[in-house]
């Protein structure tokens, strides 16, 4: 009899321990990022963006405390991302899911957000269709078509008639290629050659040589970042391509802070389209960069900005709902939200729940001894053109 009682007590204790604590005064936010592996640095920057926002605005909203639960996907792992999202909701009772550096992970978690009806903030993953996965999801970063189709149109409007494109041979690269081609050709330009290079490619000499042989007005390059921009810059210099004669165009990752540091003078003259740079001239951004440097001893980048703005949406939505955390209330509060971000003006499209922002056209120049991106043109209020086209 005693043994049965002890067994009973043990099982009861185990069940109670497994049951989550119901704390009505906390809002639990599940943060799913690729903290380890190849995408550790972008994830660290995103985490920093979240931390900075909370530092500046306090860790309570609408009378409740915000609690972050961080989970690591280890890289591209939609099965793990999905499981983590499920566990956060089922086991830890989170009220919303944020983060998502990578598209496959965001897509998988989107399924869970839709099924469980939980608010989700995609702070980085940039493939256009992601927001269609769940009616409770918003995005606060950018979409690949938004930046690249705009660049294509801009290129034609600024005198470029023949372009040669080279992109990384995987999803986002293909998307960039398709978007640039569309923008450029729709405006009247001619694509005289298009090549896709292997994802893990380290040496660009062969590809740059082919581009040179094609004799275009401009070479468009899409790279996700990492060691490639530096290698591209060097290949361009080694093969003797003059950025004044042949324009080099690309998405902002080509000229990120790291890339410019490694490229050196080889990067001067490259033109990119992007939504955020730490060198953006505005009072708000200057303050943001300063605070970021004080807290983390480095400059913010687009990952930091995406996460920072993502937390802004979380806080403002909670203020609007008065602390209610169900998916329906939060998404209604988030739709149409408009504010001034360190990157410039930002809006959440009420129809697509995606980001509407200014796309800046920048050129790499030497300013005060530093090699930076200098914004010299911009296109405002850019919606995601891919989803806009899907409607028609």
């Amino acid at each position, binding site marked *: 009899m005693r043994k049965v009682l002890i067994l009973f007590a043990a099982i009861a204790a*185990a069940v109670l321990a*497994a049951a989550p604590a119901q704390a009505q005064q906390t809002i639990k936010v599940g943060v799913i990022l690729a903290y380890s592996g190849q995408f550790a640095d972008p994830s660290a920057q995103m985490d920093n963006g979240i931390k900075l926002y909370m530092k500046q605005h306090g860790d309570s909203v609408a009378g409740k405390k915000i609690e972050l639960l961080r989970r690591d996907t280890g890289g*591209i*792992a*939609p099965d793990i991302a999905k499981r983590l999202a499920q566990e956060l*909701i089922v086991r830890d009772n989170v009220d919303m899911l944020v983060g998502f550096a990578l598209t496959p992970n965001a*897509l998988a978690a989107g399924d869970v957000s839709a099924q469980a009806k939980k608010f989700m903030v995609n702070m980085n993953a940039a493939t256009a269709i992601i927001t269609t996965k769940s009616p409770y999801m918003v995005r606060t970063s950018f979409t690949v078509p938004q930046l690249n189709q705009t660049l294509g149109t801009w290129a034609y409007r600024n005198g470029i008639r023949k372009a040669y494109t080279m992109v990384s041979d995987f*999803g986002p690269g293909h998307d960039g290629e398709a978007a640039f081609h569309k923008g450029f050709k729709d405006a009247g330009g001619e694509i005289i050659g298009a090549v896709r290079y*292997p994802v893990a490619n380290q040496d660009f000499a062969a590809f740059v040589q082919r581009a040179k042989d094609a004799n275009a007005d401009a070479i468009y390059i899409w790279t996700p970042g990492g060691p490639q921009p530096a290698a591209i810059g060097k290949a361009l210099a080694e093969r003797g391509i003059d950025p004044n004669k042949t324009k080099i165009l690309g998405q902002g990752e080509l000229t990120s802070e790291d890339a410019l540091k490694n490229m050196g003078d080889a990067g001067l003259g490259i033109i990119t389209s992007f939504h955020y740079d730490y060198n953006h001239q505005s009072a708000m951004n200057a303050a943001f960069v300063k605070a970021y440097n004080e807290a983390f001893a480095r400059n913010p980048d687009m990952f930091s900005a995406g996460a920072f703005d993502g937390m802004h949406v979380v806080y403002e939505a909670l203020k609007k709902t008065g602390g209610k955390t169900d998916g329906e209330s939060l998404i209604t509060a988030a739709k149409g939200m408009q504010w001034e971000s360190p990157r410039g003006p930002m809006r959440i499209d009420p129809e697509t729940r995606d980001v509407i922002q200014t796309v800046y056209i920048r050129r790499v120049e030497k300013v005060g001894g530093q090699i930076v991106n200098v914004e010299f043109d911009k296109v405002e209020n850019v919606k995601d053109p891919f989803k806009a086209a899907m409607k028609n």
Partner: protein
Amino acid sequence: MTSSALTEPQRYLEAQIRWRPVEIAFWLATLLPFVLAPNYLVLASQIAITALFALSLDLILGYAGIVSLGHAAYFGFGSYTAGLIAKWGWGEPVTGLLMAAAAAGVLGYVSSFIIARFRHLALIMITLGFGLLLAEAANSASWLTGGADGLQGVRMWKLFDVFAFDLYGTTAYSYSLAVLFLAFLVARRLIGSPFGLALRGIRENAVRMPAIGAPARAHIRKAYTIAAVMAGLAGALLAQTTETVSLETLSFARSADVLVILILGGAGRLYGGLVGAIIYMVARDQFSGINPQYWYFWIGTLLILVVLFLPNGVLGGMARLMRFARSRA
């Protein structure tokens, strides 16, 4: 030849197949998560899937001695096949599972003709090459596989028309566990048969085996195909229970992970893959929760310690400890 010489190998094999109490306890323990850890069932189902994958590698690595650095090719192939079948409209889980496993088996059978002809480093690198080539092909064929974004639109019907794949993972774990158990029974029978003995002979000395009447290459091809079917089964399970498929299922990282898991648990032992999968994935989940950025460090340290103190994997080390304890008793 006396009758005792004929029955010795038979009795040895029978001893292998007999169920030991600790095994029965193990399988009963796999039912515990339903009761004790109902919030961890999704993790449990992924552990079961990894265990099945590791078991399939054990068949060729532990028993036949074929070191493969590209076994994820069959896992991923099964995964994509199951995903595509569901995407194209047939969402019934069990038939989809069987079709995907068969497809992986065909791929395994075809590649086995090349695999069986090589040994040592050349074999390792050829398996690696095949795996990398398949992964590249899947990336290029993004019209079919969805490329880097992964396969979208995989929707499974209810299992046996009753059990839906839900957020809690109850159906997922039951399904995966059942498939693992059935595959395990098959593997057990195989290992405990003359075929299994022949495989071990091939592992020890492939040149000699034909001399005693065991066709080495044919046996290797058979074992490799069966291992491919099992790996495909595991991959298909993952696709069905998570309703996602990504290029990662074909990656070198997955092949390397399963190899580490098997060596950790103890290759050449029936439960090696299962034990390795449980330890590795639970450790990874825990370390990752404590320290998302540096869990690698702890896993690496765990591996080093296991090799130093438990040679031949956890099961190998434990077997040695048991022998030591028994000799002292």
